[in-house]
């Protein structure tokens, strides 16, 4: 303003200079974020990746991985370029160290889709919502913070996560979920329905939403038609790195089957051919400009490679069994400690062109069968018994064939299994009834169980939890654990207002601490700049979730309680009352008592009746005879009959 007053030419020049400067500044910012500047470690980053893998049961796994990081330095104050502000505020406000929230629909099929690879051990989640968070707070404040956090997340993701606020639905596992932490809270809502209303806020956290980049593939009808759908949000916040937000979406889709008459003659049906555009009904439209990397990976599983080599086909992009359509940019091979064995192969594609959509496709030519990597034990959990009174929970572990190769890896011939199980309070588990059967023989609990921690449930306050570590020889084929329980009664307002199907027991988590699902890749020039592959190389233990269970509890029929209850109660009261009366009374004695007392008091109804009848008969004396009483009864009945008749005729 002061300049303005001095001369007219100077401000014009200044404005010009500013105009020239702005694009340069702006491009500098973009370069810092997207390009390979020196300061890239400092700035906020975003990367997007898609991982595709054919599955043995004619389905395809697609795993989206979006990662945003925000550096710890408060250079920008409270403002961010790329990182979602809502998440940053969440982390700051609730002092979150780690958080994981998953929305899942459908069940992960551990037998057919893999049980020990990195995807299944970190991304297979129980149905519904699962939330756990690790706080950087004193223990006293954690519960209150957890409640606030659930409400904040509930608003952020349009889900009923706020039901996790009540102390009956969350728990602080001490060692079975994460080793030895006291400030962790875990909660699960098995019944939560997951739909696009949860996906939209999740997409809003991405810088390009679903308008560009890989996220533009997320066509709602096609991803929700899949067999498994798990959207996950993982937060880690440390002082050194800052906040890392990993958003993953794992879907299992079934490509459309073209009923080819040519192949129907074959005894085994051929795998359906697919491409990214045919599966998602959309193309990758352009780049998400802020993304540092945007790539697609395609994996051929270990067993697939082994089978291919067995059949004599080398592993190439196009052999007589299948064709992979575009050529990859790079190929990674997994390195395995066991030499002379084939391993999984990952092909990398980079999405850099805006005009030419990256349409990765696989075309099958011959029927081909392989199996996927299995967890050492297949876990299933089920309810035993019937009726509304009691039952048992059984967890059974069945050894899979892949056990043997793990055994070679693991030193010492003992398998460790960690079981983490939360049970709502209305299922009253008797933990002393824990029985362990190994290969059909009952074992004394102390022989098998290395470590156990039980916190019994408290009515309407805390759920019961069981943390258990089993150790048994690795030659064991099957292990079964049973726990008996009684079904509790709920107060009438504790029943859910909606459809009553039964009550859920959340999934148990079974972890195999000896077995790890890490991969390592032998590619020398592979600069480790892919967050997804870096994640694959992390040393994660193999874990699997069991099914959620449905416990039918005694439920009053809310539509007709009162007439039934009142009617039965009246009948029972009448019956027992009169029975007691009959049994208790001595009629003769009472009569004698009455006679001696010489009472003349007459009850109200007989008095009225007698007066009424005496008036009718024109008598005036107050003591009616029995005949007049009979007459009054007759009259009463007559009136009643008349009234009934009148009612019907008038109707």
């Amino acid at each position: 303003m002061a300049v303005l007053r001095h001369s007219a030419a100077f401000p014009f020049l200044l404005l010009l200079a500013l105009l020239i400067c702005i694009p340069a500044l702006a491009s500098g910012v973009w370069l810092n974020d997207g390009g390979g500047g020196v300061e890239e470690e400092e700035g906020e980053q975003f990367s997007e990746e898609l991982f595709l893998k054919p599955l043995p049961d004619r389905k395809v796994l697609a795993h989206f991985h979006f990662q945003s990081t925000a550096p710890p330095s408060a250079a920008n104050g409270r403002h961010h370029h790329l990182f979602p502000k809502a998440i940053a505020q969440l982390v700051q406000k609730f002092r979150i160290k780690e958080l994981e929230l998953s929305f899942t629909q459908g069940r992960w099929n551990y037998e057919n889709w893999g049980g020990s690879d990195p995807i299944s051990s970190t991304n297979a989640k129980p149905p519904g919502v699962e939330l756990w968070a690790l706080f950087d707070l004193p223990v006293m404040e954690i519960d209150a913070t957890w409640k606030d956090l659930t409400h904040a997340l509930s608003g952020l993701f349009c889900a009923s996560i706020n039901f996790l606020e009540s102390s009956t639905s969350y728990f602080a596992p001490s060692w079975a979920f994460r080793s030895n932490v006291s400030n962790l809270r875990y909660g699960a809502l098995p019944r939560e329905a997951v739909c696009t209303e949860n996906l939209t806020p999740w997409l809003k956290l991405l810088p390009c939403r679903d308008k560009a980049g890989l996220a533009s593939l997320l066509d709602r009808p096609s991803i929700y038609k899949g067999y498994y759908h798990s959207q996950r949000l993982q937060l880690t916040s440390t002082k050194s790195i800052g906040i890392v937000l990993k958003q993953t979406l794992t879907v299992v889709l079934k490509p459309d089957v073209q009923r080819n008459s040519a192949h129907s003659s074959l005894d085994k049906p051929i795998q359906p051919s697919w491409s990214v555009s045919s599966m998602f009904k959309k193309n990758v439209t352009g780049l998400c400009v802020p993304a540092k990397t945007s790539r697609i990976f395609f994996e051929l599983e270990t067993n697939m490679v082994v089978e291919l080599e067995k059949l004599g086909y080398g592993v190439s992009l196009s052999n007589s069994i299948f064709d992979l359509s575009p050529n990859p940019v790079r190929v990674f091979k997994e390195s395995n400690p066991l030499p002379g064995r084939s391993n999984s192969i990952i092909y990398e594609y980079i999405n850099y062109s805006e005009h030419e959509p990256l349409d990765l496709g696989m075309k099958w030519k011959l029927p081909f069968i392989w199996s996927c990597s299995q967890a050492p034990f297949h876990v299933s959990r089920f309810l035993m018994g019937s009726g509304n009174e009691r039952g048992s929970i059984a967890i059974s572990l069945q050894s899979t064939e892949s056990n043997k190769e793990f055994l070679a890896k693991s030193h010492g011939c003992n398998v460790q299994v960690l079981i983490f199980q939360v049970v709502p309070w209305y299922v009253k588990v008797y933990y002393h009834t824990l029985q362990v059967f190994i290969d059909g023989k009952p074992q004394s609990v102390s022989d098998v169980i290395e470590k156990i921690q039980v916190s019994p449930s408290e009515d309407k306050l805390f759920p019961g939890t069981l943390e258990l570590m089993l150790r048994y020889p690795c030659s064991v084929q099957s292990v079964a654990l049973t726990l008996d329980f009684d079904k509790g009664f709920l107060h009438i307002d504790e029943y859910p207002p909606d459809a009553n199907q039964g009550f859920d027991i959340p999934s148990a988590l079974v972890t195999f601490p000896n077995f790890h699902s890490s991969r390592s890749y032998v590619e020398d020039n592979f600069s480790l700049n892919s967050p997804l592959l870096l994640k694959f190389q992390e040393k994660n233990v193999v874990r699997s979730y069991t099914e959620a269970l449905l416990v039918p509890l005694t439920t009053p029929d809310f539509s007709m309680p009162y007439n039934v209850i009142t009617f039965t109660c009246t009948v029972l009261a009448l019956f027992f009352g009169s029975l007691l009366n009959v049994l208790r009374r001595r009629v003769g004695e009472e009569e004698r008592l009455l006679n001696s007392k010489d009472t003349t008091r007459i009850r109200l109804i007989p008095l009225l009746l007698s007066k009424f009848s005496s008036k009718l008969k024109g008598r005036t004396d107050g003591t009616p005879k029995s005949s007049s009483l009979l007459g009054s009864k007759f009259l009463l009945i007559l009136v009643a009959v008349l009234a009934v008749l009148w009612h019907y005729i008038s109707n």
Partner: protein
Amino acid sequence: MAAEAGDGKPQPGRRPRSRLIVRLGALLVAHSVLVSVVCCIAGSIAFLLLPVLAKNTYVSENALMPGSANPMFSSQDVVEANRFLKEILDRGSAKVTGTEIAKLIGQHVVDVGAELYYHKFHPHGNQFHPLHFFSSITNTMEMQYNSSCTLFGLNSVGIIRAPRGDGKEAIVLVTPYNSQNIGQSEALSLGLAFSIFSLLSRVTWLAKDIVWLAADSRYGEYTAVDSWLKDYHNPLFLSNSGKIGTGVCFEENILHLLDQLKVKGPRYNIFKRAGTMAAALVFKVIEKKEKEERDSLTIYAEASNGQMPNLDLINIVHYLAVHRQGLRVKIGSMHSLLKAAWLKFVGEMLQLFGKLTKHLNPKWKFDITSAEYVEGTATLASSIYYQALGIPTGSHGAFRDYQVDAITLELSPRFSLNNENNRSAFLLRGGRLIEGVIRSVNNLLEKFHQSFFLYFLTAPHKFVSVGVYMIPFALLLAPLPIVSAALFSGNDNLGVSTEKVNQEPGCIGSSDTELRSGSWKWLQAAKVVFMIHLWAIIVSLLPYMLSQFPFMTPITLLLVWAALSICILLICYLIFGACSTHCGWELLKSVMIAAASTGLSLMSVINFSTAQIGAMLIVPMCLLVQPLRKQMQAGVCRKAVLVICNLTLAVVGFPPVALLIAKGACEGFGEAGAGSFWELAQLLWSWNSATYLYLLWIHLPCWVLCLHIFLYPCIGRSSEA
């Protein structure tokens, strides 16, 4: 009269005040004869009116929405069913081991992309064990494993996991087939089941898992389904230890199977589960001799002890079968009643009455045609009979023990199944029906709870609910306590009045006058009644001992049973007979009636139909029974009527006779012999039917006591008064 006699004593000025309800009771007791006659007649009339009072069924649960979606079962699936049928018949004709068809089913299930396992079971006979009467979970640990390798059945089970479901609930489809000797109709039902299964593996709307159990009915359908359910709900983790011998040969069988399946993957002998069962459908194709104008469907629903599945399950099947697929739906009916002339007469009377009432008030809906009435009654009778018998009418009964609603659907085609076109049309109808039912149950968000569980069917679309059918029973039962009270009070008053006049001539032996006088005298009668009931319990346990001796014909067993019972009864008489004659027969009758009414009301809670039929026999018997000597004192006409009534009731009321008559009326007097009662009793106890307990614990003692009163030696004081 009793009340008035009591009233007469005090002076008119100071009438003892008593409550209204007591006075009403006294009034009823005073007019007990009238009340009992009225109640019995009203009860019988109300019972006969039940078909008239039946209501039309309706789908109560809105979520079911039967028939709201277009069926997806197409001719393509029919082709698949036909192909599967052909393969089964080809294999079946080869006459190989029983696992051949299981293998074929397994192969197809795996090809469809579903999970498969084989469930091996040992056939076990139902054994009567008095201590495990009501617990359906028998300890299978005690099962003998000394059976050879060949003595086992092999159920093949396929599971479709619902793509987006959470696996908490499942729908079960059951198709029984005889693996040793498979006929065309069984093969057809397997083909139908497989085509539905493969359709369901492709559909996207599944919310609950689908379990298909191809039950090996070599040792009976029920055994196969029941042992599968037992292993589903109460598995034994110990099982491997005791049966090494059979386990090994089973492993060989399975390995053999696996070799031929050429499928790698999970082991097929591991039992897999799919959550809580929402409903189960047992369906089979039966080729009938008589040809009808339409394909027909027969529904069986009765499970053990008269338990019924939720009416909604029957409703949706009926709705879809009639309104969508044009099938003729039938349920069992008592054929002997269809031609009964008296029933037709009653029907015509009712028709006339209906017209009359309609004339009076058009709102009253009593209009029922005579033919409808007869048919309704016949169906109702069979419904009551099968519920009363307490034996499940099919393998769906096994599900009810685990609180799962299940029914059996028996599809029978119109024409011969050899004709390709007819078969395809039939398969299309059947497939669409079952698909529709599954789709409805799949829609269900809750458990089946909306509609009725306690009902009788009078037609596939008509039912009598518990609120209505309780009325006749209540009316029949009502006179019992009243008469009991009347007899008791009458005896009491008479005793009091006569005691002052003279000592009783019959009871010289007992000097304990204090006990006899006053209100404690009924204890004598109660002792007798209690003894008889104790005897009945011993009699009911005798078959357990007898069945330990093998190789005896039913007739000898029955005779031994009867002889032993009579012996024990005689011993009882010898021990306690002396004092049993002291008390008057009125008191005895009063206590007996009280015991019978308690027993009947208890039974009505457990199995209503049994109680209903029992009440129709016991109540008149109890009310009419009088000592023969007393009857002789009455007039000739009355005497004859009373004696004849008593005698007929005594004959008909005898439990074996009653049971045989009921069976004969419903299933025809085919081979009614002396041994058939033993067989029937064996059937009842082996199915853990509460009817057995009722017959021997309530009906039999009541009958014996009635007989005892009928042949009572001294007439007692009532005749003297």
